[in-house]
């Protein structure tokens, strides 16, 4: 479903961010990405939704190749992905409902479909009663739930979460993580970058550890993926 083949990414000024990574993530998997700051987790996730393209190698996501895809194809691909960040990225002047609806409005969804889809997504993240609240009227955890609802509203096959709990306290973190597990249980794959080792240690999920751009551990292989 998502396959990295000998992928490297280097930036003009900072050099190598991702170094010769090959990996495969299957349908419905839950995968943690860990590693020290600057290891390349964010860069790797960006290559999944093709915000960045590899300097060499290929990323294939559900039939879309990083080598050949044009802007249009990337846009179409992102409609099948859900993406959330540490900083939520909600629009302050729109209510929770409107923030979720935004993802549908700008992707030519039939207007009649928007209302029901938004309601369903907000219910799924446990915010059914707060649809008319503005982001500033919501807690951090609730704001992240709105962002997740927006990511889910197009029924993505994978949810990409880059430190989704980075700005949250322990309680909210557990809540969000519980939500991600439920989402995964319903069949959506989850790729989550996190620094929260505690969270990872208590889970049975696949864990990929990166250091200086390279994958140094992949629990799916039960051994160090590569010495360097």
């Amino acid at each position, binding site marked *: 479903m998502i396959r990295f083949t000998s992928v490297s990414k280097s930036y003009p000024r900072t050099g190598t961010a991702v170094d010769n990574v090959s990996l495969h993530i299957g349908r419905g998997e839950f995968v943690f990405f860990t590693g020290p700051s600057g290891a390349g987790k964010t860069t790797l996730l960006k290559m999944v939704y093709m915000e960045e393209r590899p300097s060499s190698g290929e990323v294939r996501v559900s039939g879309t190749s990083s080598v050949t895809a044009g802007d249009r194809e990337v846009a179409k691909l992102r409609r099948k992905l859900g993406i959330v960040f540490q900083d939520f990225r909600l*629009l302050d002047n729109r209510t929770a409902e409107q923030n979720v609806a935004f993802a549908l409005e700008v992707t030519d969804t039939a207007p009649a479909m928007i209302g029901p889809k938004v309601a369903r997504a907000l219910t799924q993240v446990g915010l059914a009663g707060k649809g008319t609240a503005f982001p500033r009227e919501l807690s951090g955890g609730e704001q992240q739930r709105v962002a997740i609802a927006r990511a889910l509203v197009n029924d993505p096959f994978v949810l990409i979460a880059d430190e989704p709990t980075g700005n949250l306290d322990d309680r909210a973190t557990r809540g969000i993580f519980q939500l991600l597990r439920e989402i995964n249980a319903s069949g959506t794959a989850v790729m989550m970058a996190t620094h929260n080792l505690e969270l990872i240690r208590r889970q049975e999920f696949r864990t990929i550890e990166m250091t200086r751009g390279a994958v140094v551990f992949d629990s799916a292989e039960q051994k160090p993926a590569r010495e360097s």
Partner: protein
Amino acid sequence: MRSIRDALIAFRRTPLLSVLSITTIAFSLFAFGLFGLVALNIREALDRLEDRVEIRAFVADGTAPESMAQAAGDIAAYPEVLATKSVSQDEALVRAKKELGDFRDVFEGAVLPASIDVRLKPGFRDPASVKRVSARIRAFSFVDDIRYGEEWIEKLYRLRNVAGIAGIVLGLSFAGVSMIIIGTTIRMAVLSRAKEISIMRLVGATDGYIRRPFLIEGLAKGILGGLLALLLTYVTRTIIDRYLIQTIFFDARVTLLGLLFGAMLGLLGSAFSVGRHLRRV
């Protein structure tokens, strides 16, 4: 529909810049229009004037009427010449009195030279042909002097060219300024919506979709600018018509072309800068 609504919102967000964009586009087209009208009317005048272009060869005193008639016949056979006419001293006096109307007393007792008046065929009325024919006529020994509208015509030709060039230079300058202002407007709009745009990208909006409202906004400004210019040009022309001289206006085709040019200015200005600025969001 969304695009039109967004364009209206954008308009309200930066009303000053929007008005400025429209005004500069209008000025650009107004400059084209005004100087275009000057050029058009000069050409129209030239067409009418050229109809009357005559070469008048003044004949020395005491030339025999037979020689004059002979020469007039010869000249009429030149390929460029439409017709010739011998004018005796008496006839010249009568004509001068008629042309000057109230001032005819001035000519009391005067003697005007006889002449051969030459009219050229259409297509041979440009300054170069006039000069060429004049040179041949000058070869007749009894021809004293030759007059033709040379200076007049050349001046008008030059004036027309100057008006044309001035219109183009001024029009292009304003077009350039309008491009810069449109670019600034769009930069501000893109920056103020940077977060919105980045989220649109994230959830899979196409580039075309993100651009559309900016392009429609530009197109609308271009059309409004064009209409404003048309109004300005028309009013100016009407005033000149009423208080100065009769003029003609552009035909429907040229008018439409002007509006189209305004629309293109707005659209291209937007397309150019939206592409540049979106890349940085």
